[in-house]
């Protein structure tokens, strides 16, 4: 259903991905999912042709197969309510903290990634889960690791004629337990100062694998290889003590802004890493 009245922009709400890609091949469209980052009320954002993805059933929901596939238009509410392995607890905890319930009912994981805010709450959990994104366009479908997909603040590798169709979590990343911690100036409806996701695997009381990612402390959220290495092999009881500010800081490049100073962000991120690691081990 496309409408092209005189003064009006076209608005399309296709039911299939093929139709959506066909429209993108014909010319540039502004893609719309939950609309919670686009602010439809800001009018100008939606000048031009709009392609609404929310009526395409194949883009919503979580499916198990080779790994776990989360459709790009899956809402935060659907992620929070899904029955998922403990490794994904960090993602579900983040889902329950994206804005209020009204925002969680509309906002999607794909919108969060394509908007590519440094403070996007979905990113650290997905980095800790080794996520790969799937992009489909007229030229076909490709998969890109999330670390490559996000190229800078509000910048991604997505071509203008591509739809982000799914986030894929490889089988190997579905092990262990995880936790998410977020710090804002207030409890609700604020942009995060720092947020952390940690996924930990333990065998016989020893950490065998640690995946830790920090957001809002660099242009793009980062994994913390030094902190992960320091935890690997540690007895569970020593985990918190092995989290050192220096290991956290090396991976990050925090900015001074109205929300917090760079040095405060490092102190905060280190404490959040400690809490997330402890939370994952609980």
């Amino acid at each position: 259903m496309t409408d092209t009245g005189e003064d009006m922009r076209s608005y399309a709400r296709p039911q299939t991905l093929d139709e959506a890609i066909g429209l993108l091949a014909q010319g540039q469209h502004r893609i719309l999912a939950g609309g919670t980052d686009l602010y439809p009320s800001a009018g100008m954002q939606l000048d031009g042709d709009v392609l609404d993805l929310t009526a395409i059933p194949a883009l919503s929901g979580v499916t198990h197969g080779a790994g776990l596939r989360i459709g790009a238009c899956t809402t935060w509410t659907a992620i929070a309510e899904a029955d998922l392995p403990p490794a994904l607890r960090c993602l579900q905890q983040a889902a329950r903290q994206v804005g209020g319930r009204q925002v969680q009912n509309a906002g999607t994981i794909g919108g969060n990634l394509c908007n590519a805010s440094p403070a996007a709450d979905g990113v650290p959990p997905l980095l800790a889960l080794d996520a790969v994104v799937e992009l489909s366009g007229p030229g076909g479908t490709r998969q890109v690791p999330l670390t490559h997909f996000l190229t800078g603040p509000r910048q991604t590798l997505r071509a203008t004629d591509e739809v982000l169709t799914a986030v894929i979590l490889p089988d190997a990343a579905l092990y262990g337990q995880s936790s998410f911690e977020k710090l804002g100036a207030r409890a609700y409806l604020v942009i995060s100062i720092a947020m952390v996701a940690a996924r930990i695997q333990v065998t016989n009381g020893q950490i065998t694998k640690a995946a830790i990612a920090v957001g809002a402390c660099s242009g793009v959220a980062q994994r913390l290889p030094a902190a992960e290495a320091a935890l690997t092999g540690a007895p569970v009881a020593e985990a918190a003590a092995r989290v050192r500010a220096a290991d956290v800081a090396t991976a990050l490049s925090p900015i001074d802004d109205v929300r917090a100073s760079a040095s405060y962000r490092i102190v905060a991120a280190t404490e959040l890493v400690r809490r997330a690691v402890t939370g994952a081990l609980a």
Partner: protein
Amino acid sequence: MQISLDINGSLRDVYLDPRTTLLDALRSHLGLTGTKKGCDHGQCGACTVLLDGRRVNACLTLACMAQGAKVTTIEGLGSSDALSPLQAQFLNHDGFQCGFCTPGQICSATAMLEELAAGWPSHASTDLEGPFPLSHAEIAERMSGNLCRCAAYSNIVDAIQNAAKDGDAK
């Protein structure tokens, strides 16, 4: 463009620019001014309506996106002769000062009590399996998308707690 919306159980045809938000469609095109515009940016919750029973911010939803869904606004929840349980309890407990946020609070709380009945935990729930006693902290967390500039929060919480009790008693 011409669209047809199912609002409070009746089908309404309306001709609008596709960029029109559901909020503007309700208020300016359909004469349903119970739904309020506070921020127009998803932050205050004054525009909360139910889409197929789920609460959303009407200011972040395009009217065309609501086609095919059942839209419920404050006007559809009850009337002055037949108040919904939440509407009645907001009156009993003075759950407002100026009243501007109230329609959004009541629509939001209506969906919130349904979520609770369906066993959905919140970020504040200590046990994800439930049950979820409606403590002050649970209500504050679950209603965090609705601000009240008059800070009538304590009375809003009382109203919701009592409406939940009415529901349990039934």
